[in-house]
């Protein structure tokens, strides 16, 4: 894109072309993330309403309350932004943005379709996990800087929980990485092209089980119920968000949804074929770059839709959990992590390793070999 823009500009203004290209990329990513937040916010309220035998939003923007998120956003923007007297003002103001930055930086390395990624990275899986784990710093700082004991409890809980759950999460992510033989998310996604039987979750029984451990850890690492201890309403008022109001509060909120979607997409790419649909429709229709650039573009768009649907299925699953289950206690959260998730993930890693050694082609290839 920068090269294309450069043709319109004199040589000495080449930097302008680069800046414009970068700005467009950033804007695209930002709009994508904001749309995800807005839609998730609406969906959460609607799903919660349906689960609870009520309607959810119905007024703003037509029959289904489509514009509820806009109304919520306007309300939050116009609310007073309070800083408690006992707070560390500087850190208090900064903490939400730290959270926000961490969860949005993840999108830097998340491919949205084959090759549609802001920054192609050799170690993308690792990078996504690392950056997603940074969100906890903002939460801890928010908890500490609020100068409230409830916030402090929330921050401490978050620190303990997220640092612990990063371990099984990384172990679970290591298994599909090992099966695919690369940490590049684009490459991992492309390897699962073909059909749903090529997805890594169906690679062997171990990856199948790993997915469920991954699911548990992913829900825990983005602090959703039943692991939402950091903001446990009935215990800690609102945890680290107790003292926040207005826009700053909504920034935390956006960060939460953004990381929910990021972790769903990560799961989709690692286990569910990413942008490859259950049936290879795009390649059957010939929507690849080899045929025509425009066809490749259409195929990418189809892949994007695929990925968005998969990501949203993940988000809807998390919402379903949140509105159904009670919350765990902090010691039980730790027990789940240390006594169940880590040993299970380690065992799965070992199992998948042995499977890859014995039957390199995966379950499908094994079946084919057996039949042939």
């Amino acid at each position, binding site marked *: 894109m920068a090269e294309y823009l450069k043709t319109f500009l004199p040589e000495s203004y080449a930097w302008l072309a680069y800046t414009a290209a970068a700005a467009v990329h950033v804007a695209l990513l930002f709009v994508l993330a904001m749309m995800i937040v807005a839609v998730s916010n609406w969906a959460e309220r609607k799903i*919660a309403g349906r*689960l*609870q*035998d*009520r309607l959810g939003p119905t007024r703003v923007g037509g029959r289904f309350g489509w514009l509820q998120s806009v109304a919520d956003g306007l309300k939050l923007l116009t609310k007073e932004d309070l800083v408690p007297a006992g707070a560390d003002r500087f850190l208090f103001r900064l903490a939400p943005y730290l959270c926000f930055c961490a969860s949005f930086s993840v999108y830097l390395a998340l491919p949205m379709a084959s090759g549609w990624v802001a920054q192609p990275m050799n170690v993308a899986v690792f990078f996504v996990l690392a950056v997603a784990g940074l969100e906890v710093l903002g939460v801890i700082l928010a908890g500490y800087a609020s100068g409230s*004991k*409830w916030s402090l*409890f929330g921050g*401490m*809980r978050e620190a303990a929980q997220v640092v612990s759950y990063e371990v099984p999460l990384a172990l679970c992510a290591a298994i599909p990485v090992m099966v695919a033989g690369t940490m590049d998310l684009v490459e991992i996604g492309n390897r699962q092209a073909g059909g749903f039987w090529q997805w890594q979750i169906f690679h062997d029984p171990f990856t199948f089980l790993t997915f469920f451990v991954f699911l548990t850890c992913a829900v825990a690492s983005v602090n959703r*119920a*039943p692991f*939402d*201890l950091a903001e*446990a*309403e*009935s*215990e*800690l*008022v609102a945890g680290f968000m107790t003292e926040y109001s207005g826009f700053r509060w909504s920034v935390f909120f956006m960060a939460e949804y953004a990381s929910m979607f990021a972790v769903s997409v990560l799961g989709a790419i690692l286990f569910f074929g990413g942008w490859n649909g259950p049936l290879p429709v795009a390649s059957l229709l010939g929507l690849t770059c080899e045929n025509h650039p425009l066809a490749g573009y259409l195929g990418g768009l189809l892949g994007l839709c695929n990925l968005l649907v998969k990501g949203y299925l993940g988000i809807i699953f998390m919402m379903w959990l949140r*509105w*159904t*289950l*009670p*919350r*765990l*206690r*902090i*010691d*039980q959260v730790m027990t789940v992590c240390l006594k169940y998730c880590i040993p299970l993930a380690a065992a799965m890693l070992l199992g998948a390793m042995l499977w890859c050694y014995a039957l390199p082609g995966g379950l499908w290839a094994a079946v084919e070999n057996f039949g042939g």
Partner: protein
Amino acid sequence: MGLERVDPEPVECDVRTDEILVNMGPQHPSTHGVLRLVLRTDGEVVLEVTPHVGYLHRCAEKIGENLAARQWIPYTDRMDYLAGMNMNLGWALTVEKLLKLEVPERARHLRVLIVELNRIASHLMAAGSFGLDLGSFTPFMYCFREREKILDLFELACGARLTYSYITVGGLMADLPPGWLPKCEAFLKDFEPVIDELHAVLTSNAILIRRSAAVGVLSPEMAIDYGCTGPVLRGSGVAWDLRRHGDPWYTRMYDGYRFEVIAQTAGHYPQDRKYPPVPAVAVLGDSWHRFYVRMLEVVQSMGLVRQALERYGRCPAGIGEPLRLTQKLPKGEVYLETEATKGQMGFMVVSDGSAIPWRVRARSSSFCNLSVLPELCRGCLIGDIPAILGSLDIVLGEIDR
């Protein structure tokens, strides 16, 4: 009975840090009103809990000493505002006992009908908010939906949804409107499957069991020592229900009614239908048992409502005359306890012979139930406090009066 007492020693924890003094309430979401708990914690471990009450004190008893006996009925509504009918009944029976005033048979059955419906509503609220305290929001809405239906029935009967003043000294304020009985029957029919739903999302939910089983274990001895009553006492395995074991003036209201006193005696609950089994991790007297007792009592109350519906329909018209405001009370004093939804609600009236009582006193069940909280919470985690408090099911209006 396989009881386990909570270790009274403060719990030693691994990584020791500073003790923190935290104020839980009076504006905390899970203190069920304006209760204030001062927690002394070491990290997440609670070393000491001190409840502070009185934020909702409204001098109800003193007001009662300046009003005619029947005029105080609306004030009883505002004590346990989740079970106004039971409060009305307690005061009405107390004054009736002083007056030796009999109510007609139709009024008796109507009272049973209304009071047991209110018990269902109150227990639904308790079950829902218990779930909410443990972080499960949706069952709360289900409970509220059913409670709304009961409140609709009450609104049809007396015009009010929360503070009814329906049962009064000498009978009831009005008879049921035409068409009320079929509506009540329809509600019972609809409600039956909802109980199974609630059992599915609450009682047998694995997380809820782990959060509430063996948490806040109250031994029967301690329960009796602290004067705990109602589902809290029965949750500890003491089969004691004033509807059966109380003052004859009260128990004769239930003459001829069949119901079970819900408590785990001899290792099992009285069961007339299939309920989720008691989980292996649950200890008698813990939060789970208190919750379970309420869930089973709802079914008993449904049975009582059904019986009352049938009996009420057979009675001749006449639901008693409300006491005239100028009617002089006989000299003397009466204390009567009734089985309200939260426990034994006692009212005392002392009369010097005038129409206005000389002394009025209310014995709050929630107050006694709350008094055991510091014992139950010693050494628990912060997350357990809402569980224990929710299982005690207190109402601050009644505690502070």
